[in-house]
């Protein structure tokens, strides 16, 4: 079974679109502050929002830069469905689009608790990760067109928990890929794995 990318693992395009909207609204505040009687405090407020917007743009640029060097990975698991206690094989393949000095590649099997609650008018989500298994590929130089291929033996621990989703609380199993490239933004992706009760 091939895994599909987690919906919460944002794309650079979505981030850019959001940043564009954010900065446009912030800019209106700045212009109003400097050109009308609204005054400097109004403009400063707009500028601080603009600063946050620029940080979002920079995050988008970093995500995009990471994608210039490496393509999205392909991940397969050896079973058609997973249950608590199952042993399975993970196949990971990823192609390099450009030359890269990789410090390390980390593949992780993670159980993530995600709890959402209301605090005043804000909705807050907190997460806690249990790193079940972590595997590192060593530092290496990769040329454009080269493909990394790796197989890993994994198990959903028998004493663990199946995937659970309710309105405010969620238990998700994820396979994460982190490619740490020297002097370049990291490439990070997360893939959802549905684990059924045994």
């Amino acid at each position, binding site marked *: 079974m091939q895994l599909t990318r987690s919906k919460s693992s944002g794309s650079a395009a979505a981030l850019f679109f959001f940043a564009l909207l954010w900065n446009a609204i912030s800019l209106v505040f700045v212009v109003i502050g400097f050109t009308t009687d609204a005054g400097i405090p109004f403009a400063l407020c707009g500028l601080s929002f603009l600063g946050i917007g620029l940080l979002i743009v920079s995050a988008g640029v970093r995500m995009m830069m990471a994608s210039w060097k490496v393509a999205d990975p392909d991940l397969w698991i050896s079973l058609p469905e997973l249950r608590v206690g199952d042993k399975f094989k993970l196949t990971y393949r990823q192609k390099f689009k450009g030359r890269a000095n990789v410090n390390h590649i980390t593949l992780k099997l993670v*159980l993530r*608790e*995600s*709890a*959402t*609650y*209301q605090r005043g008018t804000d909705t807050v989500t*907190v*997460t*806690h990760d*249990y*790193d*079940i*298994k972590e595997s590192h590929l060593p530092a290496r130089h990769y040329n454009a067109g080269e493909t990394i291929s790796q197989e890993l033996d994994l198990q959903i*621990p*028998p*004493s*663990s*928990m*199946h995937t*659970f989703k*309710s*309105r*405010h*609380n969620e*238990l998700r199993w994820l396979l994460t890929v982190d490619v740490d490239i020297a002097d370049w933004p990291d490439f990070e992706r997360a893939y959802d794995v549905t684990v059924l*009760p*045994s």
Partner: protein
Amino acid sequence: MSADIVINFDAVTDLLGGVPRFDPSSTIRGSVQIVPHSNVNCRHIYVALVWRTEGRGDRDTGVVSQLDIYQGRLDAGVPTYHDFSFTLPRGPWSYAGHYINIIWQILVTIDVPRAKDIHGGLRFILSPAGRSLSFQAAALR
């Protein structure tokens, strides 16, 4: 308006931390004893199989099944007994984590007209045998 509500499970074969454990998809049977402190004309007495979350997130609940076991008058100090039986679902399993706990219980509700409902509950663990309820990453490695 109040009442003593005592819930008991039949055929408990396993305890986990002192709490009865039942296998997913098995049958849970038991009885409810109700002793009202005053005369009550109740609309319904419900026995429900429910789960709920506890922890940092806002609470989620699920009513898996509900029985309407009695309607009518309950006399002060006179105990009444009612049996219940539910087929348990496959999940969610009971869980004790960092931010999230999943709790199962049998919940008894006495629906009293023009007054606050009276509740009583008894927790149990829904989990396969041999599984630890507390989820610790270190123990999994």
